[in-house]
């Protein structure tokens, strides 16, 4: 069966190669004569998708049959016996590097087939060339899979298997991956990664044919939003998984793998906003091309970081120079190609940019791009530094950039919809900014009170006195107020838009609001996303800057207690349970009181995985609106229980904001014909959702 998988991998690679050849050849023969050759390129793109589907299917079937002749299945099959166990047969496909690369290549092929299907009826020059570029990307991926290091169809060594195909060695899926978020996290992230190849392919296509019109952007901008959405969902699920499973009480540690997923998301923000200006104003043309390329390159860099181990261990790549060259080429060639293309096509891609003032919509979009590029550049630089013999950096360095840049960024994001194109007139601006500012002032009162009463005492204990302490609190206060400002402006834009529409159409306020949400989806989706980001920023200030951590031990006797802030935990005993697969779960129970009043129980525990010789901590969390109490049972030794408790302020706000951004972005990505009202006339200075 492994041969079948490899055979279809080979066919997919051949298919991509032939598709590239026929698309270019068809073009050389001219639109009329070359039509059938060009069409062949489209059919071959479907064929590639089909071949990779067989490959993925073969691997998936191997998981369901527990076919241990697949080395990959041996190393990544789940031993779980819960009712999620059948799902882990699917997630086995993306639990390891080889399988996840295959799965990813398959998703790329799916996007390829989708474009081919959409553009089949036109077979216009732009689509043909974009599809050719897309197949080049596809070819790289498929070839990378054939390299032994990445090949998911390696045969298990004979000594691993008994006479009846039973497994003699102990190997299995990493138990930390046996969690619902890990079933969903990789596919969503990979879907986002794969989709980022589409804007790149069309940007290259547009450069090849020299079409500087907004056509290529309108063809791909929904796919770009869709991909960015899935990148965001993937990052969020990863954060949830880290919070719930890794048991260290945080959700973001600036770990190389996390950074890898963040990079294309950051430049993706710049990409989407450049597309907006391109579509609506005919500006930011070169920005849009560059952001497409950079986002794609960062996706490749992300895979390289995640799947090579190049950062954690400097030696990981020495054994596989071929992959290093392949991935290196996939990063360098797009950049070189774009640079060259933009030089050659400079005239066609001259944008109608009008920077009349620093206080204008154009300049806010510009700084949006600059800050995102800057952030991505530094995060990439710091992440990759150890691979080039540099230092490894901890969260303090990343935070030192993320805090000021993030707060400034959210401020620009918040204020952008209030600015006018070209130049913002003072009175008009203040007229629009008036209510959001009042609302920000009102929201700041409870936030500042919270900071003073809850957060400041923690900072006094955890942050170095003097300048660092002042800066820490300055960031905290500014961050909260900017977050409140972003929330206020987004709400104002909806209220104002609905009010105006209701007055003009004689409708009710809420039906107008509903119409705005359903018709002007790009804009209202964008504003909902802005709203979510504002909430996330407030949540980040609390949960990333003011965490209170306590490590303590309790005597192993029912009734013994420990205290954290105003919570008292009373030990009630332990329950141990052996599962049919030999895993042992232990669960401790503590009664919890807050200010003397009982508020329930927590049951932190551990699972010892029999086959993998590994333990997993199972944290127990008390979720309150203003904070989480995160309780971890560390260890059980002699006559004491070692416990770790973290108080994470405002962490729920991060999840709530995350949901808003997902809903908002989904709204913007919803695939339907663009409504005309979004294409505002060039002279309009209105930034709110327009009626029609």
């Amino acid at each position, binding site marked *: 069966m492994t041969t079948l998988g490899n055979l279809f991998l080979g066919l997919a690679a051949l298919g991509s190669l032939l598709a590239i050849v026929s698309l270019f050849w068809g073009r050389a023969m001219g639109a009329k004569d070359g039509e059938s050759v060009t069409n062949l390129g489209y059919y071959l793109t479907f064929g590639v998708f089909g071949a990779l589907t067989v490959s993925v299917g073969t691997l998936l079937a191997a998981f369901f049959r527990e076919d241990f002749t697949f080395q990959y299945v041996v190393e990544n099959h789940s031993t779980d016996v819960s009712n999620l166990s059948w799902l882990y047969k699917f997630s086995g496909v993306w639990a390891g590097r080889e399988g996840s690369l295959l799965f990813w290549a398959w998703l790329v092929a799916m996007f390829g087939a989708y474009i081919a299907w959409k553009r089949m009826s036109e077979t216009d020059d732009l689509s043909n060339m974009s599809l050719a570029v897309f197949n080049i990307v596809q070819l790289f991926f498929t070839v990378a899979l054939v390299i032994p290091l990445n090949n998911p169809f390696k045969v298990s060594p004979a*000594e*691993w298997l*008994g006479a009846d195909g039973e497994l*003699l*060695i*102990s190997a299995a899926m*990493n138990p*930390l991956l046996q969690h619902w978020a890990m079933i969903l996290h990789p596919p969503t992230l990979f879907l986002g990664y794969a989709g980022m190849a589409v804007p790149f392919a069309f940007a290259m296509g547009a450069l090849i044919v020299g079409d500087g019109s907004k056509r290529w952007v309108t063809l791909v901008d929904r796919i770009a939003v869709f991909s960015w959405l899935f990148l965001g969902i993937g990052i969020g699920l990863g954060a949830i998984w880290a919070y719930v*499973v*890794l*048991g*260290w*009480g945080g959700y973001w540690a600036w*770990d190389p793998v996390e950074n890898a997923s963040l990079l294309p998301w950051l430049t993706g923000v710049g990409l989407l906003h450049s597309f907006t200006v391109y579509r609506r104003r005919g500006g930011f043309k070169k920005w849009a091309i560059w952001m497409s390329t950079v986002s794609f390159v960062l996706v490749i860099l992300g895979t390289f970081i995640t799947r090579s181990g190049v950062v*954690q261990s*400097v030696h990981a790549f020495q054994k596989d120079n071929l992959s290093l060259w392949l991935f290196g080429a996939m990063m360098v060639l797009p950049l070189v190609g774009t640079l060259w293309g933009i030089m050659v096509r400079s005239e066609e891609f001259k944008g109608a*940019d*009008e*920077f*009349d003032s*620093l206080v204008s919509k154009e*300049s806010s979009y510009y*700084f949006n791009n*600059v*800050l995102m590029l*800057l952030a991505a550049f*530094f995060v990439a630089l*710091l992440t990759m*530094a*150890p691979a080039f013999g*540099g*230092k*490894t*950096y*901890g969260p*303090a*360095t990343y935070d*030192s*950039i993320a805090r*000021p*840049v993030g707060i*400034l960024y959210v401020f620009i994001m918040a204020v952008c919809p209030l600015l006018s194109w070209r130049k913002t007139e003072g009175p008009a601006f203040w007229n629009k900014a008036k209510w959001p500012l009042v609302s920000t002032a009102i929201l700041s009162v409870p936030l500042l009170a919270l900071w003073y009463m809850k957060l400041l005492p923690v900072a006094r204990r955890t942050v170095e006195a003097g300048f660092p302490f002042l800066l820490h609190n300055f960031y905290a206060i500014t961050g909260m107020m900017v977050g409140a400002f972003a929330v206020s402006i987004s709400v104002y834009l909806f209220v104002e838009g609905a009010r105006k529409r209701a007055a003009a159409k004689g409708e009710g306020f809420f039906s107008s609001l509903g119409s705005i949400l359903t018709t002007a989806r790009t804009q209202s989706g964008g504003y909902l996303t802005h709203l979510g980001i504002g909430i996330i920023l407030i949540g980040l200030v609390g949960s990333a800057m003011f965490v209170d*951590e306590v*490590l303590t*031990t309790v005597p192993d006797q029912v009734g013994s207690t420990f205290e954290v802030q105003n919570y008292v935990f009373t030990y009630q005993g332990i329950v141990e349970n052996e599962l049919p697969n030999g895993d042992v779960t232990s669960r401790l129970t503590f009664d919890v009181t807050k200010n003397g009043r009982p508020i329930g129980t927590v049951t932190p525990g551990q699972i010892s995985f*029999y*086959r*993998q*010789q*590994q*333990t997993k*901590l199972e944290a127990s969390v008390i979720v309150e609106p203003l904070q989480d109490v995160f309780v971890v049972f*560390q*260890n059980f*030794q*002699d006559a*004491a229980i*070692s416990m*770790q408790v*973290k108080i994470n302020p405002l962490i729920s706000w991060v999840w709530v904001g995350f949901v808003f951004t997902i809903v908002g972005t989904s709204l913007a990505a919803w695939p339907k014909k663009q409504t005309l009202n979004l294409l505002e006339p060039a002279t309009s200075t209105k930034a709110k959702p327009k009626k029609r």
Partner: protein
Amino acid sequence: MNKRARNRLIGVTAIVVIAVVAIVASTGSSDGAYYRPVGEVVNDASLVGERVSVGGEVVAGSWDKKSNPMRFDIREEGEDDGAVISIVYHGGVPSTFGDGVVAIIKGELTEDGYIDSEDMITKCPSKYETATGSLTVARALEQPEGSTFPVNGYVVADSIQPPGGGARFVISETEGDGPEMEVIWEGALPSGMDSGSQVVVTGSLEGGSFVASDVSLAEGEQ
């Protein structure tokens, strides 16, 4: 494009870029650490007082999760007699922490030769052994010298010796009975290994003794 507006734009951009570079430079110098092998950190006196990043396998039995801060040793990865350094770790212990796990530590190398750390990442252990598929002692003793294979057996009572002097321990075919084989092994013993434990040793016969390249407890023992 308005020329004055463009100049201002460039000016503001330059200020932002310079500010970010300055912030990174100032924080990064205190937070960053060079990745160094354990052996280099142990021997290079110039690193004392510097922040370093070191990775190595957690030495079996060297740690006590209960102590706070936790103290443990790590050994150069993949080298059973490699250099060892002590770590004093402040902070929550990751899920995956345990004997043989590769821990990547970042912290300050103190004058007393240990690393004071608040930052640890663990890689997942990749060492699994099973008694199934390995040879019995009797069968092992019939194998030609020099070929490498796994053997399972039971540790003979009171046979475990400190490293550095010939046989480290002796294993027998069944618990307390059957043919016996001396095992030469200089690395750390798996935690929990004791008289009567079932172990899986991998290596080859040399001059009647079994020279092990790996020793681990059999699955049933964990």
